[in-house]
């Protein structure tokens, strides 16, 4: 039996070489570290892994991380999408500055963002003071974590949707209007389906970023076990105790849950592509 070549010969020149380089780089940068983490978990044994994960404090932290990441990503989907729409469709003074500002959460060290957000939202801070006036605590509660996660996730949705919105032909909307559709109808039946795949991508990216976020959150979270302690902090705590296996166990749990969520999002994306066709 002859071995089938891994990659069939293609009429495009240079495929073998570029594929080789790509696979090497992806392995070095992404697959090897994750593989090492998984190996550590396998060596530790599934029973031990489960013993580390199946504790109220770890469950509370995992639940908190994923729940708030999901809420923040949903918030970003809505408002990041709106922001993308405004930036792509309207011309107004200061648009370019606003457009550039969207990328700032990417550039700013997350710890710096966390400290700045904390300073703003503590009861003595500018916004925290206003909130305290109506009896609302933000910093050192789950609200604080939510705000930090919204901050770091916002650009993902906006930057994924913006080019797609810019590409939508005005004529499509005009056609819809000439055929007697209301604006809401046009939005729902014409615009949103075209945006759905990109929106899902942006949502997935924002979600993934929020789940693993550490630097900005620990400053504003308060880090109280069972209340405002995020899962990445638990990993750092285990490392602080030189407990590498337990740290790996929580890391693996996060990886598995994230993978399941991203897979689900991808399936929805495939399904929605099929339903409305490629855009």
């Amino acid at each position, binding site marked *: 039996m002859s071995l089938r070549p891994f990659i069939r010969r293609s009429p495009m020149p240079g495929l073998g070489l570029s594929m080789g380089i790509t696979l090497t780089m992806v392995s070095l940068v992404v697959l090897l570290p994750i593989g090492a983490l998984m190996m550590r978990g396998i060596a530790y044994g599934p029973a031990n892994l489960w013993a580390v994960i199946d504790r109220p404090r770890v469950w509370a932290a995992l639940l908190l991380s994923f729940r708030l990441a999901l809420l923040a990503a949903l918030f970003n989907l809505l408002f990041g999408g709106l922001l993308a729409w405004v930036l792509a469709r309207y011309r107004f003074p200061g648009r370019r500055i606003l457009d550039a500002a969207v990328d700032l959460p990417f550039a700013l060290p997350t710890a710096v963002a966390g400290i700045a957000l904390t300073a703003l939202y*503590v009861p003595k801070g500018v916004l925290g003071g206003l909130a305290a006036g109506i009896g609302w605590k933000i910093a050192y509660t789950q609200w604080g974590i939510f705000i930090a996660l919204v901050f770091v996730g916002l650009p993902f949705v906006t930057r994924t949707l913006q080019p797609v919105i810019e590409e939508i032909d005005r004529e499509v909307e005009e056609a819809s209007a000439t055929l007697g559709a209301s604006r809401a109808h046009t939005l729902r039946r014409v615009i949103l389906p075209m945006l759905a795949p990109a929106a899902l991508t942006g949502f997935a990216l924002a979600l993934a970023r929020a789940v693993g976020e550490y630097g900005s959150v620990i400053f504003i979270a308060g880090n109280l076990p*069972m209340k405002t302690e995020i899962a990445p902090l638990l990993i*750092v*705590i285990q*490392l602080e105790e030189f407990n590498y296996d337990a740290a790996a166990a929580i890391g693996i749990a996060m990886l598995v849950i994230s993978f399941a969520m991203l897979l689900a999002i991808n399936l929805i994306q495939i399904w929605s592509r099929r339903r409305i066709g490629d855009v």
Partner: protein
Amino acid sequence: MTALVAGMLALPQTGAAADLLNVSYDPTRELYRDVNTAFAKAWTDAGHPAPTIETSHGGSGAQARAVIEGLDAQVVTLALGGDIDRIAAAGKLPADWQSKRPHNASPYTSTIVFLVHKGNPKGIRDWGDLIGEGVEVITPNPKSSGGARWNYLAAWAWAEKNGQDPRDFVGKLYQHVPVLDSGARGATTTFAQRGIGDVLLAWENEAYLALEEMGKDQFDIVVPSVSILAEPPVAVVEANIKNDEQRQLAEGYLDFLYSPQGQALAYKHFYRAWDASAAAPEDVARFPKLDLVDIAHFGGWSKAQAEHFGDGGIFDQIYVPK
């Protein structure tokens, strides 16, 4: 292209004969800035070639991990003996390192005191006042901060000496903590700059530093009746010594910390040192006497760590009811 990337990733080369890397923890930044300058002068005055001394600061546990994983430190000056024990367990220095220098290898010590708002509005005098109605206490998370472990043990020691159930008392204390920062500097910021809480449990040297930086008109230091003798120890990392010249330098550097000049610097930076002969009298007079319990009382770090702060240990039980 490859050369460019390699150039950008290149690390500063250390390890020449007269180089020394001291891996330390966060609050010693100011101390070692002075020590490095003074030592370099003393060392060249004694006829040695001028040394290059670098000091790296970070969380004590994270610094210990970095050394275990290959950070090329010749000298470690960390917050807890337990952290250096970990480096010893990894085979980088002998297990009996702590007996190699006087005073459990701690050239200076510190303790845990309270920092309160000016005029002490909540009337906090001792540990028992911390669990009073409406008092908010700021301390970092003992699971992630070495300093916070000293705070916790100091509270425990007070309860023992005052006929209270220590576990119950410490448990109540942590119910008065609204924010658990991950490190000591973060907790100081939360208290001093964010204005959260009524009292900060702090290293004595950090408390004085906060007074000096933020102004004496804002905070007062309250010294409790009982506290803990915090011993931040020092050691030479044998496995990272490349030659005799470097060994001599590393030993000389740590010996300098015990010299009258080194001790005077420790006093100046608000540490309780041992030899006051060269220190400024006002630096020494600053420290009130109090009842200090040491880590041996808790059976040493390896026992205290597992019993109180390990997985499922007492601290976990205080927070997560079984």
